[in-house]
């Protein structure tokens, strides 16, 4: 029994999940409206885009990199889907365009980071601006509205199954599948090794550059798909769509137990992290706390999460032993 307890608490996602439950229950007691069907819908629907992106981002952070271009890519992808749909292209075609955009951005990021060994923080900061710039140029002040967006996406954005919005179900399924891959595929295990000890991973024969490239490609693909979620959720898209999302996404990952130093964390943890941040934001509203405090609270939570992480890992120190007598 003791061993079981130890193993469960050793799972990084458990404390995040407990925090999530606490926030929801405590707020629900103070304001029952929060726990109503529509309250729950607010949380799930509000989190769908960030959660989808966080699944992709967690794969990147696990290998001690970061992808800041996801917000721009998702926003641009949302716009392109609407734009192609308005020009009477079918849904599949529209989605493929979004996916192609994501893959293109991911491939460029991947090439620069994996093969030219440039720091991902700078590369993706650059591509974030480049993508946003091209997006602004093409969108040129236009707005995609509900009538231009594909009908199916509009429907999905409004539909729920058992009070759970389709969009969240989609994000959850994505998180489940990617988590399974991260747990069970040899190549995905390599990403954990790479994030845990980069020099050693090359020494044990992991094809570091190839793995890095494909991980960025995957993150790009997820960003493209997240464009569809974005359009579906807001029923509109313009040049500001997805602006600043990347930071919410990274926050969700870190709060959800994906260590920014790499090596640990799961996509489903990132999803739970996104849920926690979203429910705190809504809880503060439900408790009548001023909007302005919400960002401060989320920021504090973020810093607490990494402080706690550092504290816990500093408690297990490598022991240095030295022979004094001979």
């Amino acid at each position, binding site marked *: 029994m003791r061993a079981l307890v130890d193993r469960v608490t050793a799972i990084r996602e458990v404390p995040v999940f407990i925090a999530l439950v606490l926030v929801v229950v405590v707020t629900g007691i103070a304001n029952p409206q929060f726990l109503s069907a529509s309250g729950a819908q607010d949380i799930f629907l509000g989190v769908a885009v960030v959660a989808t992106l966080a699944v992709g981002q967690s794969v990147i952070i696990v290998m001690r990199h970061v992808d800041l271009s996801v917000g721009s890519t998702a926003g641009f992808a949302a716009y392109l889907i609407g734009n192609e749909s308005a020009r009477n292209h079918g849904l599949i075609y529209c989605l493929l365009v979004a996916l192609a955009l994501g893959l293109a951005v991911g491939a460029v990021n991947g090439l620069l980071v994996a093969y030219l060994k440039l720091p991902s923080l700078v590369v993706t900061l650059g591509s974030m601006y480049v993508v946003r710039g091209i997006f602004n140029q093409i969108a040129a002040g236009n707005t995609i509205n509900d009538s231009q967006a594909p009908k199916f996406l509009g429907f999905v954005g409004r539909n729920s199954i058992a009070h759970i919005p389709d969009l969240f179900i989609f994000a959850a399924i994505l998180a489940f599948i990617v988590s399974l891959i991260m*747990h*069970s*595929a*040899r190549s995905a*295990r*390599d990403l*954990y*090794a790479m*994030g*845990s*000890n980069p*020099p*050693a*991973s*090359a*020494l*044990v*024969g*992991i094809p570091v550059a190839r793995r890095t490239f494909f991980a960025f490609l995957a993150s790009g693909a997820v960003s493209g798909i997240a464009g569809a979620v974005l359009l579906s959720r807001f029923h509109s898209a313009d040049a500001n769509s997805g602006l600043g999302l990347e930071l919410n996404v990274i926050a969700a990952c870190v709060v959800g137990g994906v*260590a920014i130093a*790499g*090596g*640990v964390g799961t996509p489903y943890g990132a999803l739970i992290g996104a849920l926690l941040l979203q429910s705190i934001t809504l809880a503060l509203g439900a408790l009548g706390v001023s909007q302005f405090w919400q960002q401060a609270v989320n920021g504090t939570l973020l810093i607490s999460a990494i402080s706690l992480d550092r504290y816990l*890992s500093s408690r*297990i*120190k*490598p*022991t*240095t*032993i*030295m*022979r*004094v*007598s*001979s």
Partner: protein
Amino acid sequence: MRPVVLTIEGAFKRFGGVHALRGAELTLVAGEIHGLLGENGAGKSTLLKTLAGVHRLDSGSITLNGKPFEQGSTRSAREQGIAVIYQEPSLFPDLTLAENVFVGRQPIKNGRVDWSAMAEEARALFVQLGVPLNPYTRARGLSIADQQIVEIAKALSIKATVIVMDEPTAALSSKEVERLFVVARTLEAQGCAVVFVSHRLDEVFELCTQITVMRDGATVASAATLDVTEADIIQWMVGREISDLFPKFETSIGDVVLSVKDLAREGQFADISFDVHAGEIVALAGLVGSGRSEVVRAIFGVDKYDAGSVRINGTELANGSPSASMAVGVALVPEDRRQQGLFMSASIAKNSAVTMLKKIKHGLTVKSSSEIALAKTWAETLSLKFNDLNDPVERLSGGNQQKVVLAKWLATKPKLLIVDEPTRGIDIGTKAEVHKLLSQQSQQGLAVLMVSSELPEVLGMADRIFVMREGHIVGEFLRKDATPEAIIAVATGAVTV
């Protein structure tokens, strides 16, 4: 006769102007523990790294299990059956021990990593080695001894025929060393050829069946342990003339400048007491890892010490404050000049003047003409070879970089100069110039504390020599009494003084 597993013949390897290997040879047979000995710089590391697939020989042949060994890839080296266990293994701290053993080769069932089979196989390997580690634990926080066990388990899992242990005992407690010996004998009994590199002669004699000694990149001798004595080995290791005469000038020894008393830092060194007088060069000798650099870092204040005291001219120095040390005239030229001693992309002039900014500044600015003037004086004194004092330091050769580091500190007119490996990696000619400079400075009354792994340098330069081993001073020699054999014997623990 047991089958020969590995033969290295006529191995040559150059790094720039340095001949790391010139005619190294090694023969390993199945089921033996083979000691590989040699001083620092004898070429052991280069040879081992070649086997690990890190380096490629310039010439020479390596035959492994009857086939030519394919060099230059760590992955391929492993696949051919060579595993190298480093002194401090590099595990993946966030992965479980089982995954550390099988990283990149996890057992697969139905296209998915079979976690339970992986854990069971790892557990079986640990049991086979007699060290039942829990395969589910993460590697973070694991002791170095246990990390080595994980690496050895990995070696077994790839069915390595040659297992190289590079100074595995350097960071182990005596109990852990015993455990490692048991493991090594297990491997021997299973028919592996185990290469055991150590500086501790007692260990080599206890464990190894065959001993090969290297010196200056070549194999000097190889013999069965039963046929040789410790004295033979020491003779082979140092049997080199002190060929280059270092210009050592007669000096008059003055008052005590540095006085170190009972200095200790947990896990690194203890009971360190010695004095350095004005005009005297004192050397801290010993093997790499014996705690010499740690002691001088603590004296200068880079690291804090836990107990004891450091006095300069009778005044106690604040613990852990390099700026306090500099204020009373202590200068430290660190071991790794690229990282700790120089601003590589800044100019020669700027680097020489950086310690003198307070003296040459005008208000808030520093005139580059004053920097140049200062640098010029030193460039002449040190016969620095350069094109332009405005060139970045990284364009200078290693030896000339070292001169710039010395210039920068000598410009402060220190009372005590601490140099850590002052001539590592620099050519013979420049070496002699650096030695001359140190000797001149001590003649003018500078107290010099030198850490050096090169015995000829220690013997040629120092007025007094303290030998360290495992964090303790284990011997003191006056210049006239010091011989290479005596120092090696004390440093390796073959003899206690």
